[in-house]
């Protein structure tokens, strides 16, 4: 596949990087990334991955754009209110970069569809807003051996880790089970500063680009936390993978996906 003159110009700032070059840009253009959640995290991640020329981007979300989303979900505009988020996101991505093939999935992830959804993709990005989905995505990625960027944000804080199943610790290595309903506040209950999605979602996009191009060290084996009020980034080293983990140990007790109950209020926004 040869670059067109337009592509050479569009991706010139990538191609000039010795770590990326023509080879890395081709890898990006052949890559398939699935973004689950077209919201605070998924919006900036989608924008950067589309701009970077990732060949195929899948976007999963069962919601429509709401006025209260626009404070942080920068891929949607005021004119998009009421539109399916996946459609609004796809339109923005295609407008940024017509090279990108966008696949939209207007659905919630569940044990019934998640494995099939992720199977076709090279890298998965979790931008969901509830623990049921976060555990489901982690477990499915472990079972399908799909690399995953996990992230969470709340108030002025955010965190992320990159999971290479079979190699690095997974989400369930850190947190054994989801907390009970309403035990830990969600963004809707507690709020989140808009730019937090931008910081953490962009870091997720960065991890996807690094994974695809094979450049640098991934955030595997670490949980990176960001506290905006203290302006503090902190990398927590995680114990090795699998030690007693119910899903990613060599002798897992969880071999089937679990649909945890999702708080009813979370089904709306």
């Amino acid at each position: 596949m040869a670059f067109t003159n337009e592509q050479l110009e569009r991706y010139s700032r990538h191609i000039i990087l010795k770590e990326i070059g023509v080879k890395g840009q081709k890898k990006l253009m052949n890559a398939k990334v699935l973004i689950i959640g077209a919201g605070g995290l998924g919006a900036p991640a989608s924008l950067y991955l589309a701009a970077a020329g990732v060949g195929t981007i899948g976007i999963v979300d069962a919601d429509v754009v709401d006025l209260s989303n626009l404070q942080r979900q920068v891929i949607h505009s005021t004119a998009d209110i009421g539109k399916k988020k996946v459609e609004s996101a796809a339109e923005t991505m295609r407008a940024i970069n017509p090279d990108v093939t966008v696949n939209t999935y207007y659905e919630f992830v569940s044990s019934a569809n998640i494995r099939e959804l992720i199977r076709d993709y090279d890298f998965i990005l979790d931008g969901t807003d509830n623990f049921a989905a976060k555990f489901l995505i982690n477990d499915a990625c472990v079972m399908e051996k799909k690399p995953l960027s996990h992230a969470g944000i709340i108030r002025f804080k955010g965190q992320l880790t990159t999971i290479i199943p079979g190699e690095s610790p997974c989400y369930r290595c850190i947190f054994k089970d989801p907390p009970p309903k309403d035990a830990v506040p969600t963004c809707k209950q507690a709020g989140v500063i808009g730019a937090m999605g931008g910081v953490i979602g962009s870091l997720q996009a960065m991890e996807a680009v690094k994974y695809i191009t094979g450049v640098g060290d991934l955030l595997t084996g670490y949980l990176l936390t960001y506290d905006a009020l203290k302006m503090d980034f902190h990398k927590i080293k995680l114990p090795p993978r699998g030690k007693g983990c119910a899903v990613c140990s060599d002798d897992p007790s969880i071999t089937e996906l679990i649909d945890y109950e999702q708080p009813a209020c979370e089904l709306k926004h």
Partner: protein
Amino acid sequence: MKIVVAGEQKEVKDSLTVSELIELEKVETPEYVTVSVNEEFINSETFDSHVLKEGDEVEFLYFMGGGR
């Protein structure tokens, strides 16, 4: 004794337990925090009995459920 909490050195009383440190640090939702000491996760059932030693490196890992 001196321990390191979330990368910061702290002076605490000798034989402090993980539970006591959780209280001292005013950890939010202490029932759901994951604690690592010297890069090993501590079973939450032993927070009361796990005594910290000089130089221990402690991390608190919190649930963050937001994203959309």
